[in-house]
């Protein structure tokens, strides 16, 4: 893994500010360059977001969607119905816990393997990277089916080896969540590993050499020298993972067949989809979407704060 262009060293030094060369015409040129992406993002992200909030304030079910009945503004009634629904709270809790397990899992595995990768020679490291790259590249849909197949009650190799033919891993709520989490960690730890590995490799050799000359063991070097230097990168990888794992849709939808038996494995994203498109309660679905957006925006604020604290400037 040679890095061809390193846009930034992991010591979090901001790339040298570009000297303003031609100041006067910058504004107009920038507007022109930004126009296509800007229009697209406004039309397909900002405007739908506004619409989402709107829909959540209306009684918007199948009759309204087809135009058979007029739209009725009901204010916050959708939210009141949602917050009074036990299922919503249980889905919210499982979403948070599920995301937490996935995030912690991929961070531990990813960082651990990144450290391991710096300790071994090229061939084992390339093998590990190749395998990780494969897992990373596997589309969520394909990955979901592979894991379902591995753990299939009758045809799965795992049950065959364990001698548990007929045992269904997706029947029980926790084991179904566990199976999905395993698949998610499998395909998301490589991102953490690659990021952390690049970070460790960029720590100047002198720092580590000095620590080792001082007689520090490898464990001490890792925990007291390398980890603190990597901390900003780690924080960012954590938040990036939170954002990804909080929004898992495909794996849950496919592996638990739309949210599990009696909706036991629903997470917010799948819940929104089911409410809106299966139940045709668009207003209620939109309200769930708004709640989710707000939660993620809160995480974003934390993210921006940490970025700023670690010396980030746009």
């Amino acid at each position, binding site marked *: 893994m040679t890095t061809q262009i390193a846009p930034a060293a992991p010591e979090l030094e901001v790339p040298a500010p570009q000297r303003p060369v031609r100041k006067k015409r910058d504004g107009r040129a920038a507007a022109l360059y930004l126009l296509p*992406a800007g229009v697209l*993002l406004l039309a397909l992200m900002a405007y739908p977001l506004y619409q989402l909030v709107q829909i959540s304030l209306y009684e918007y079910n199948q009759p309204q969607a087809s135009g058979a009945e007029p739209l009725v503004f009901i204010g916050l009634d959708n939210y009141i119905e949602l917050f009074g629904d036990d299922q919503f709270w249980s889905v919210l809790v499982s979403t948070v816990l599920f995301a937490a397990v996935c995030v912690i899992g991929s961070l531990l595995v990813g960082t651990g*393997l990144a450290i391991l990768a710096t300790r071994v020679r090229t061939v084992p490291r390339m093998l*590990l990277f190749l395998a990780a790259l494969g897992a990373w590249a596997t*589309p969520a*849909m394909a*990955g979901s089916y592979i894991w379902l197949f591995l753990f299939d009650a009758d045809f799965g190799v795992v049950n065959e080896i364990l001698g548990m033919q007929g045992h269904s891993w997706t029947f029980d709520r926790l084991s179904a969540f566990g199976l999905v989490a395993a698949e998610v960690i499998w395909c998301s730890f490589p991102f953490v590993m690659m990021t952390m590995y690049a970070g*460790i490799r960029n720590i100047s050799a002198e720092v580590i050499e000095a620590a080792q000359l001082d007689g520090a063991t490898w464990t001490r070097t890792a925990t007291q020298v390398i980890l603190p230097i990597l901390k900003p990168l780690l924080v960012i990888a954590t938040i990036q993972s939170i954002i990804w794992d909080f929004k898992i849709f495909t794996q849950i939808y496919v592996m638990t067949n739309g949210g599990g038996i009696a909706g036991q494995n629903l997470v917010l994203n799948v819940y929104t989809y089911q409410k809106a498109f299966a139940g045709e309660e668009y207003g209620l679905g939109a309200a769930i979407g708004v709640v989710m957006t707000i939660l993620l925006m809160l995480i974003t604020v934390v993210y921006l704060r940490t970025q700023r604290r670690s010396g980030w400037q746009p």
Partner: protein
Amino acid sequence: MATVSRPVRKRRRPGRLIAEIACCVIAALVAVPLYWMVLSAFKPAGEIQSPAPWTFAPSFDSFERVLDSQGFGRYFVNSAIVALCVVALSMLLSFLSAVALTRFRFKGRTVLLVMLLVAQMVPVEALTIPLFFMVQQAGSAVPALGLNELAPLVLVNLAFSLPFAIWMLRGFVAAVPAELEEAAALDGASRLRFTWQVLFPLVAPGLVATSVLAFIHAWNDFLFAQTLIFSDVDNRTLPQAMRVFYKPEELDWGGIMAGATLMTIPVLIFFIFVQRHLASGLSGAVKG
């Protein structure tokens, strides 16, 4: 630059052999699911249940079944069209935006950058509901932009992969020294010429790394395909098609694994092609 900053390892450490063995074992474990997928796709029908990690009679039956009977090829082409359109457009738009955001000084630049970051956090999955109705409306005006068409899928996937693509590309554009731009200006090159003849080739590796993420984003998308192409069987994409093959009453695992293999191969090729640029691109993007 990679070898310079490697941790020193002049002394032989006794733990290294153990670490290397562990590394190989873990690599094997991580590779098992993919290996099993390919293996099962090639296993003849009778062997699908056997736990043997090899087969002596590899066959293309599963692939043939998938490609012939179930119109997989058609879905593959649909997915490829969507993904390639997204890649091409995303490269162009994110390059333009990244140049503007790193090379130009203008009012509101910081605000835009923060908004770009915020845009990455928007749970786009929640936007399925308004987008469904928007596309429905668009379709009544321009049929090609309506439900069950591929064009809206391209636009939606493009929009949602742009914020991260721009963010990632910024690092690559910023890495080109300002002196180069000054030199070009002294030589009388216009800004447009500098952007396309100097900057563009220099940023190309970054563009490739960015494009792979856009490709994966579009290739993997299931939710938007499922929402926007809900009834036209011919315009389905691969992830949707996979769902169709999965029939609980007659599970054809060989066929499903063959389908999964066909779906994974293009991404794998893309990945291997750009892997050397990926780590640097991501660490640049992640740290901003």
